[in-house]
């Protein structure tokens, strides 16, 4: 066990360490051959397919559901209404006790007497094929009485606006205020005060594989097996059991390959609860795969905020105060169980976060509307907080005539100031804003770019450079959900087992949706235990098999699941080395496991292959010395305890060109420097950053769920809703600063959301940098050609 005892060396520095190596992911071979298994691929015997009849109205009373014609249509197994399904599935309310005052109304798997958004299911048709179910669904006659929809969040709280859930008293789901430092004084004493209104359009995830579930109630076992593309299998197990009146042990959730998630597949959806309930009701497997049109009106939407922002600044660049007022619309229900108030709460927490300024006032209001439900999506709150903060900082710089890099240098929290906290009370263990800024400026060749920009401007070409510093919440403790009463685990576990041929199996409670979880867990286990990577097999996504845990969301799998795997690997090594010592008559401390063999720790000389040790332990235990009992399985769990969140930080920059005649924006280059602590697999981190950036560029330029005043989604198809495609996206250069967290031996923080957090802010600032000489300013995203031309006064 020499590695940890030598000064300055950690388990990460072990011989043949895989930490910091860009090894390929072990699960890719099947995916490139089309041999993955997604839930949408699954077929079970006697399986029925469900199609939902969905409300065409944003708000309507359901007067009658006539299923008689549908019930006799070819292939139909059952037609089920909300009232019928409510007998096997109880409703839920999406609130958390630590979000004081948050309220919502009971939501049913299928609407009972009222539809509250266009797309809410009002009946289910189960048939032998999906096509037959859809055919029959068209024959279900629903009589509606249209009600006045609440669609404009700006007037949702007005006295004249109908209250969507009268029993709640008003349309206000949640409100939070914060007042830190001396805000009024800072604004009064400022050399300049700048304000702006920032708008963030609703957008959605568009996972390429839509949400999918196969639920299989087996009355013979009295067990429900649910195959689901989900990020959080144990959370789903708990909730399905709770609302179907089952014990948790009666529900098994299995998660195979997942075709994209990004926060879309971490929530409890009414139609998925209905699918599980239908299986129980009909005593047979039921499959639901949302089609793309259903996805647009039922997958959670994200953002939809309008933020009034104000900043006070002194002539020397010192920021005096930030003040924001956020209004967001979340649809008719707060989502379950994570709630739809987390994003607004995060915005209050995060605005101004990178900066030393201590004067900060914020208010956030969350209102109900008759639109699709809105909830947490990749980088929850961060893109809004970052765009508002960074937009205000750039406006302040402009007001005092200071370079945007310089104003950041003068205000970012110093790298040697940690541990520190923010005006809103966030605790920072170790951040590297200045090192990141310096690295970014060097990577992009900032001075040269400014020269190029000026030269192009002479030719009538309008280019802009925009920056966005950010902080990112990762590795959340129970502070996120557990303290609010949700049974969403913040700890994760890993079980590592040495098999009879010297191979290792690791069962982990964190999950894979393409990030590379399987790879990084294998790298950590191979390193901690001491075998070649190809000898480690990782099993995840099955509540019957893995330790209990939270899953993969909020940039937590590597930092939390990785540490559990590291400790489990170390523990197994100790167990194995103890048995080896007994066989070899050597002190266990003098032995180690390297490259799949027991070796002398000092010299590395091989003493015995692992397979030989395993052979003796499993097949000839009679030859072991008395009292030696091999225990070739070890389990460890981990949760961060000292800090509620492991904050990461970074900075992004965008270089782009605005065509002032057409309003089109061409992204030229994009840079990111981020600090996620220990990097387990550099390629995977970089690809998380790049994918995250593009997921932020989409809503910056294209993505927008457009509703009319009646609450009808106008562009709910992939024809009409624009997503980033290959030709429009730039190459993205990624750099790193490494400040490991001391909470874990691994030192890894999350990286999955950093790209999305700052991309839109960098683009918005770059557009405004390009347009500044023309006197135009845009603070609403997506920045469409129409918005550019309006800002330039070319269209009215």
């Amino acid at each position, binding site marked *: 066990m020499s590695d940890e005892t030598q000064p300055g060396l950690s388990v990460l520095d072990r011989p043949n360490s895989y930490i910091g190596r860009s090894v*390929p*992911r072990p699960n*890719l*071979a099947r*995916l*490139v*051959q*089309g*041999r*993955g*298994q*997604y839930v*949408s*691929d699954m077929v079970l015997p006697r399986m029925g397919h469900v199609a939902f009849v969905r409300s065409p109205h944003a708000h309507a009373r359901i007067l009658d559901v006539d299923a008689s014609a549908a019930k006799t249509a070819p292939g139909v197994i059952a037609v089920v209404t909300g009232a019928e399904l409510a007998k096997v599935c109880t409703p839920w309310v999406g609130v958390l006790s630590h979000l004081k005052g948050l309220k919502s109304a009971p939501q049913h798997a299928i609407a009972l007497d009222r539809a509250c958004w266009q797309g809410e299911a009002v009946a289910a048709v189960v048939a032998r094929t999906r*096509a037959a179910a859809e055919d029959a669904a068209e024959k279900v006659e629903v009589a509606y009485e249209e009600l006045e929809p609440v669609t404009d969040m700006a007037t949702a709280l007005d006295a004249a606006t109908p209250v969507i859930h009268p029993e709640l008293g008003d349309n206000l789901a949640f409100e939070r205020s914060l007042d830190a430092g001396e805000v009024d004084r800072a604004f009064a004493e400022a050399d300049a005060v700048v304000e702006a209104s920032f708008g963030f359009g609703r957008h959605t*995830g*568009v*996972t*390429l*594989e*839509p949400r999918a579930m196969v639920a299989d109630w087996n009355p013979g076992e009295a067990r429900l097996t649910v195959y689901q593309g989900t990020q959080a299998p144990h959370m789903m197990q708990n909730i399905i059991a709770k609302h179907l009146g089952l014990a948790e042990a009666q529900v098994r959730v299995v998660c195979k*390959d*997942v*075709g*994209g*998630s*990004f926060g879309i597949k971490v929530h409890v959806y009414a139609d998925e609860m209905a699918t599980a309930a239908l299986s129980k009701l009909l005593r047979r497997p039921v499959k639901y795969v949302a*089609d*793309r049109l259903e996805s647009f009106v039922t997958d959670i939407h994200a953002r939809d905020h309008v933020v009034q922002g104000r900043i006070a600044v002194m002539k020397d660049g010192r920021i005096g105060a930030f003040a924001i007022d956020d209004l967001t619309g979340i649809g008719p229900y707060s989502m379950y169980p994570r709630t739809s108030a987390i994003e607004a709460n995060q915005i209050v927490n995060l605005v101004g976060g990178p900066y030393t300024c201590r004067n900060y006032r914020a208010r956030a209001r969350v209102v109900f509307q008759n639109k699709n439900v809105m909830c947490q999506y990749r980088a929850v709150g961060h893109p809004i907080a970052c765009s508002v903060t960074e937009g205000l900082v750039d406006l302040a710089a402009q007001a005092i005539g200071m370079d945007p890099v310089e104003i950041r240098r003068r205000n970012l929290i110093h790298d040697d100031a940690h541990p520190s906290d923010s005006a809103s009370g966030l605790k920072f263990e170790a951040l590297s804003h200045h090192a990141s800024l310096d690295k970014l400026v060097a990577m992009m060749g900032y001075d040269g770019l400014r020269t190029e920009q000026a030269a192009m401007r002479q030719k009538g070409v309008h280019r802009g450079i925009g920056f966005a510093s950010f902080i990112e919440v990762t590795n959340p403790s129970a502070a996120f959900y557990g303290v609010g009463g949700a049974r969403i685990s913040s700890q994760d576990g890993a079980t590592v087992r040495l098999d009879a041929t010297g191979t290792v199996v690791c069962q982990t409670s964190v999950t894979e*949706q*393409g*990030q*590379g979880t399987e790879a990084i867990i294998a790298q950590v286990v191979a390193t901690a235990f001491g075998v070649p990577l190809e000898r480690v097999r990782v099993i995840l996504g099955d509540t019957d098999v893995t330790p209990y845990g939270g899953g993969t969301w909020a940039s937590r799998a590597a930092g939390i699941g990785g540490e559990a795997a590291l400790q489990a690997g170390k523990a197994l090594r100790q167990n194995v080395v103890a048995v080896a010592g007994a066989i070899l008559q050597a002190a266990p401390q003098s032995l180690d496991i390297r490259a799949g063999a027991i070796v002398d720790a000092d010299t590395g000389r091989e003493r015995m292959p692992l397979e030989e040790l395993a052979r003796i332990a499993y097949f000839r235990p009679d030859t072991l010395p008395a009292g030696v009992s091999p225990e070739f399985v070890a389990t460890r769990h981990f949760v961060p305890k000292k800090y509620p969140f492991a904050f990461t930080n970074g900075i992004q920059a965008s270089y782009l060109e605005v065509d002032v005649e057409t309003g089109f924006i061409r992204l030229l280059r994009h840079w990111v420097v981020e600090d996620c602590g220990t990097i387990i697999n550099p*390629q*995977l981190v970089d*690809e998380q950053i*790049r*994918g*995250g*950036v*593009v*997921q932020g560029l989409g809503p910056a330029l294209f993505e927008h769920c457009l509703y009319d005043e009646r609450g009808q989604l106008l562009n709910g*198809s*992939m*024809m009409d809703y624009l*997503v*980033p*495609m*290959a*030709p429009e*996206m730039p*190459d*993205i250069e990624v750099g790193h600063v490494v400040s490991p967290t001391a909470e874990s031996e691994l030192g890894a923080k999350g990286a999955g959301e950093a*790209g999305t957090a700052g991309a839109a802010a960098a683009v918005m600032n770059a557009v405004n940098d390009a347009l500044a000489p023309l006197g135009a300013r845009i603070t609403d995203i997506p920045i469409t050609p129409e918005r550019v031309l309006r800002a330039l006064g070319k269209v009215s």
Partner: protein
Amino acid sequence: MTAPVDISLTVNGEPVEARVLPRTHLADFLREELGLTGTHTGCEQGVCGACTVRLDGEIVRGCLVLAVQAQGASVETIEGLSDTGEIADLQAVFEERNALQCGFCTPGMLIAAQDLLAREPDPSRGAIREHLSGNYCRCTGYQAIVDAVETAAKRRREANP
């Protein structure tokens, strides 16, 4: 035109006889009748490219071709292209470069990329981006895919100068 129709075609080199509803599109036929689930459906309106397959040597959207239109044709899917080894080099570099995350777009992306490389042995990054412009990937941001296709092209040129 709603009665089932008999069709015969070749799928990945194997003769297939089937009776299909006229409205069944090729991607559903491959997935549901033949169990070839490597062909994915993401939008079923010809936008996302996840269902890309080869029909008589040309790439098509499996959701925009009816199964009955494949009468007498030769269809190749990701399973077939994998088993023949035709795109083994491309698949290897996708793995090395992590040019896929969730993998749902990948079969279609690989078939579209192979189509480009068959026509243009030395495509620019811009040409790669253009050729893949009908294949949606939500995970990668595309750069790793462009890198992988560029590398595969380079290796093929070096192998066959």
